[in-house]
């Protein structure tokens, strides 16, 4: 099996995730796109582990670690999203401009 197939699949998944993060407006859908990008990284790790068998299962161990970090990230991310919803009544990432207004006020 050519190594290029999993690598290209990972590239495609990562770029779909990038598109999702840039184009989506709802913060939760942006978080879902983050998950797609992390999965692309995992696919790379597993593919290189199967290509370069080092006896330490390096790629697979790191993939498990990345999955753990993804769980921590989504927990914190959703807590922040819920906080945003509680304060503003929406989860629109484009409309959350509190920090921008503060910056403009400080310039004046």
């Amino acid at each position, binding site marked *: 099996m050519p190594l290029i197939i999993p690598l290209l699949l990972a*590239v495609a998944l990562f770029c779909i995730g990038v598109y999702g993060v840039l184009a989506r407006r709802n913060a939760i859908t942006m978080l879902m796109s983050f998950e797609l990008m992390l999965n692309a990284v995992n696919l790379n790790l597993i593919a290189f582990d199967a290509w370069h068998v080092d006896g330490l299962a390096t790629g697979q161990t790191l993939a498990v670690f990345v999955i753990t970090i993804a769980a921590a990230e989504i*927990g914190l991310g959703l807590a922040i999203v819920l906080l945003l919803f509680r304060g503003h009544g929406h989860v629109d990432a484009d409309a959350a401009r509190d920090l921008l207004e503060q910056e403009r006020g400080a310039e004046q």
Partner: protein
Amino acid sequence: MTTALFSIAGAVALLAAVMVVTSRRIVHAALWLVVALGAVAGCFGALHAEFVALVQILVYVGAIVVLVLFALMLTKAPTNPLPALTTRRSPFAAVVALVLALILGSGVVLAFGNEKLKPVPDGSAEAVGTAVFRTWVLPFEVLSVLLLAALIGAIVLSQRTGKKGD
């Protein structure tokens, strides 16, 4: 055989990922995420990383997507199609993603275009567990501290601080 299995799972993952970022219904996007993550788990299985595939299904499909669905429920996400779910700058986003795909793809093809991989069955729970607790013990402990910190952070963030000046 491996290539065929991997290609099928990869095609499913790609289709589902496209649906995740283009679907106009948020709940449908979350459910397509289940398909995408499950198909990526299939890819892991085809590459003989069975333990990682199982962890992927357990943690991603079992925990993360359920968490996302709960968050959708708590933020009163509408179930009808929303045209405004994608911003007006989505063509620019598509251009950025395409350029990135071209750069990354050409780099990968140039670097690894002729390499072959032959998956050997070394992805059992025993192999990965031995590696984690023999070679990767310190990162594992650091990661558990990180997970604990994230847990405490999520609890602190979601506490209701009703009183002003607290």
